[in-house]
C-alpha cells in the first residue's frame, strides 16, 4: 500500500509540504478565534440526572448573562474586547465524567475558566486542576482545602449561609424551641447537617432526635416523615435536600398532619409545593434563595446587575424553571469578568490574583471578604451577607440580609465542632 502511495508522487518533500500546510491550517481556527475575540468559559455541571436541577438552570442563566455582556461590548482585556461563549459538558454528577469533561474543556475547547457545581464531582477534577493550573469555581465551599489553590467558591458559601435562616427564625419566632432534621447521606447533605446543628445550638433550639439520614436513592418519604414527627417537633428542618426530596417530604408533612415550622436550604419551584399542599401549610416556610424580582434585590448592597430584568428574561425563556442556581453561575461570571478586566488577561493565575486583591470582592448579595482559612484551610470562599427568605401568601419574600461573618465570629467554634463531628473539616475529608 505504501509503495502505491509513493509511486503516486508521495515523497518526503511532498509529505513535509503538506504537513506544514496542514499544521498552519489546523492552527488557523484558533488564531482566528483569538483575533475575532471570543473567550470560552467551561460549564462542567450535571445537566442530566438527579442533580441536574443544580446544573441546567445555571447554564440557562449563563446564556442570558453572555448575551447581555456581548451586547454591551463583551469583556475588555486591555485594549481589546472579547465576546464570551460558554462550552458545557454534562458530568452527570459523576467524578469520572467530571474529570473527562475538565480535560476535554481545557485541551480541546481551550477554555479560560471552568465553573462547577462541585461536591461529589470535585475529587475527580482535582488532579486535572493541579496538573493544569486551571481556575475552577464551585458552588460548594466544602470542596475547598489547602491543596485546592485554583478552586474558588465565589457565589455560594454552602452550607454556612444556612445559619442565617436559623438565626432569623430564633429572633423572630422565639416560641419555637424544638427541632428535628433529615438529610440525604452525601457530600451535600452532611456538611449542611453539621451547619444546621451548630445554628440550632447557637440559637438555643433543642434537637429532639439525631438527624435522620436517608439514602439519596430514596423515593418514598412517608417512613422518614413518620420518624420525624414521632417526637412532636415544632420545627422540621429539611437541610440541603435536593428539590426531588424537598417536594415529597413537604407533601408527606402535609399529609401526616404537621402544622409547625419548616426550614430548608432551598425551596425550588415552591409554587408546585403549594399546589401539592396548600398556601396555608406553606405560609412562613423559610429558605435561603430569593426570587430576583423581589424589591429587596434592588437595594444598594446588591451587586448583581439588573436582578429584576434578569429574572424576567429567565422566566420568559424558561417559564417556571427559576431555581436556586439560576443566577449563581452568572454571578460568578460577574466576578470573573471584573477580575479578568482588572488583570487585563484571561490567564487563570492573573485573574485569580486580581479577583482576590485586597481580600475583598463584590458578591451578588453585597461586598464580601475572601474567607475560610479556619474552616477550609484556605481563604478562597467569598463570604458576606445572605438573604433569609420566607414564603408569604404564596410568594417568596426576602425578610432580611444577614451577615455570615458576624454569626461566625460569635459561634465559629460551635460550627467547627459539629463539622468535625461529621468528618467535614478540610483535614478530615478523604
Amino acid at each position, binding site marked *: 500500500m505504501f509503495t502505491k502511495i509513493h509511486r503516486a508522487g508521495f515523497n518526503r518533500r511532498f509529505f513535509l509540504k503538506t504537513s506544514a500546510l496542514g499544521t498552519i491550517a489546523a492552527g488557523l481556527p484558533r488564531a482566528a478565534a483569538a483575533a475575532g475575540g471570543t473567550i470560552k468559559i467551561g460549564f462542567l455541571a450535571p445537566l442530566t440526572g438527579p442533580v441536574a436541577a443544580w446544573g441546567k438552570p445555571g447554564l440557562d442563566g449563563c446564556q442570558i448573562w453572555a448575551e447581555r455582556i456581548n451586547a454591551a461590548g463583551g469583556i475588555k482585556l486591555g485594549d481589546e474586547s472579547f465576546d464570551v461563549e460558554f462550552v458545557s459538558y454534562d458530568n452527570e454528577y459523576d467524578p469520572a465524567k467530571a474529570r473527562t469533561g475538565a480535560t476535554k474543556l481545557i485541551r480541546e475547547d481551550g477554555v479560560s475558566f471552568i465553573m462547577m457545581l462541585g461536591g461529589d464531582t470535585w475529587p475527580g477534577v482535582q488532579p486535572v486542576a493541579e496538573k493544569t493550573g486551571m481556575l475552577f469555581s464551585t458552588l460548594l465551599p466544602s470542596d475547598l482545602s489547602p491543596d485546592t489553590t485554583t478552586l474558588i467558591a465565589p457565589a455560594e458559601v454552602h452550607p454556612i449561609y444556612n445559619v442565617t435562616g436559623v438565626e432569623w427564625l430564633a429572633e423572630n419566632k422565639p416560641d419555637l424551641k424544638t427541632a428535628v432534621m433529615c438529610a440525604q447521606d452525601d457530600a451535600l447533605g452532611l456538611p449542611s447537617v453539621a451547619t444546621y446543628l451548630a445554628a440550632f445550638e447557637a440559637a438555643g433550639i433543642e434537637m429532639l432526635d439525631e438527624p435522620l439520614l436517608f439514602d439519596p436513592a430514596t423515593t418514598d418519604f412517608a*417512613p422518614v416523615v413518620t420518624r420525624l414527627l414521632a417526637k412532636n417537633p415544632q420545627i422540621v428542618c429539611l437541610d440541603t435536600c435536593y428539590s426531588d426530596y424537598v417536594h415529597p417530604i413537604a407533601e408527606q408533612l402535609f399529609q401526616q398532619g404537621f402544622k409547625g415550622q419548616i426550614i430548608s436550604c432551598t425551596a425550588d419551584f415552591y409554587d408546585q409545593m403549594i399546589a401539592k399542599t396548600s398556601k396555608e401549610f406553606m405560609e412562613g416556610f423559610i429558605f435561603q434563595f430569593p426570587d430576583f424580582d423581589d424589591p429587596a434585590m434592588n437595594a444598594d448592597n446588591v451587586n448583581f446587575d439588573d436582578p429584576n430584568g434578569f429574572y424576567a428574561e429567565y422566566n420568559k425563556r424558561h417559564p417556571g424553571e427559576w431555581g436556586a442556581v439560576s443566577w449563581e453561575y452568572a454571578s460568578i461570571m460577574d466576578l470573573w469578568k471584573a477580575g479578568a478586566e482588572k488583570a487585563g488577561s484571561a490567564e487563570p493565575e492573573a485573574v485569580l490574583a486580581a479577583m482576590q486583591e485586597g481580600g475583598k470582592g463584590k458578591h451578588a448579595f453585597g461586598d464580601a471578604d475572601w474567607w475560610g482559612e479556619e474552616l477550609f484551610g484556605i481563604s478562597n470562599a467569598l463570604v458576606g451577607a445572605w438573604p433569609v427568605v420566607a414564603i408569604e401568601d404564596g410568594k417568596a419574600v426576602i425578610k432580611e440580609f444577614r451577615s455570615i461573618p458576624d454569626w461566625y465570629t460569635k459561634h465559629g467554634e460551635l460550627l467547627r465542632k459539629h463539622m468535625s463531628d461529621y468528618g467535614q473539616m478540610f483535614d478530615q475529608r478523604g
Partner: protein
Amino acid sequence: MLEILAQTGFNALYAASYISLVAVGLVLIFGVMGVVNFAHGELFMAGAYAVVALYADLHMPFLVAVGIGLAFVGLLGLLMERALFRPLRDNPLGGLVASIGFLMILQSLAVMGFGVRMEHIPPVTQDVIAFSEKVRLPVARLYVIIAAVVLLSALWFFLKRTRFGWALRASAQDPEAAALQGISINQTARIAMFIGAGLAGVAGALTAPLVSVNPFMGHSVIITAFIVIIVGGVGSLEGAIIASVAYAFIHTVVTTFWDGVLADIVGLMLMLIVLIVRPTGLMGSADRA
C-alpha cells in the same frame, strides 16, 4: 408508640403494593422468556410519564391516564419482545445487554421529550383518612394499595384459571415441552411481556403523583425489584409478592425506628442471608435458579 407502629404499617403496605407490582412483572418476564430485563425500571418511569402527559398536561381523568399508561407500557413491552428479545431468544446475555441499551433509549427519550427536571403532577386527591392525629392514610396511597390487590388478584386468576395462563405457566416451566404440546412460544412471550411491562407501567402511573417523576427514577426501583426477586426466588410470582411485603415492612420499620441508610443495608443483608441459607430464594426451585 402504637400510633407510630400503625402509621408505619400503612407506610409499609403502600410500599409493598407498588414494589410487588414491579417485581411480579419482572419475574413474569424472566420466568417465561429467561431474560433479565434491566429496562424494567424505565418501564416504570414510562408509566409515570404517561400520567405526566395525559393527566398533568392534557388534564385527562387520572384513572383514564393510568389505564392508557398501562396499555402504552404494555405495548412498549411487545415492542421489546419483538425487536430485542425474540431475535436473541437463545442468547440470554444478549437479551440482558439489549435491555440495557433499551433502558438508555427510554431515558434519552424522556429527557428529550420532558427535560431533566422533575415533573409537577397535581395531587389526585388531598383527602386523608385520619384514624387519629398521628395515624393517617392519604387516599392517594390507598388507591395504590387497592390497585395492587386488584391487579395481582386478576393476574393470579388469569394464570391459574385461564387457558392462556396455563400456557404461560407451561412455557415458564419447560418451553420445549410446552412447544411440543402446541403452545406458541412467541404468543406466550408476547403475553408475558405485555403483562410484565404493563404491571411496571401501572405501578409507575399510580405512584407518579406521590413521587418525584424524572427520567432517572427507574434506578432505585429496579434495584429494589432485583433484591425482592432474589429473596423471593427467581421465577416465583408468589415469592416475589411475599418478598415484596417482607422487604417493604423491614425497610419501613428500620427507616422509621433507626435510619434510612441502615434500612438499605438491612435490605441488602436480607438478600445476602437468603442467598447463603437458601440460594434458590424463599419460593424458588433449583431448576429455575
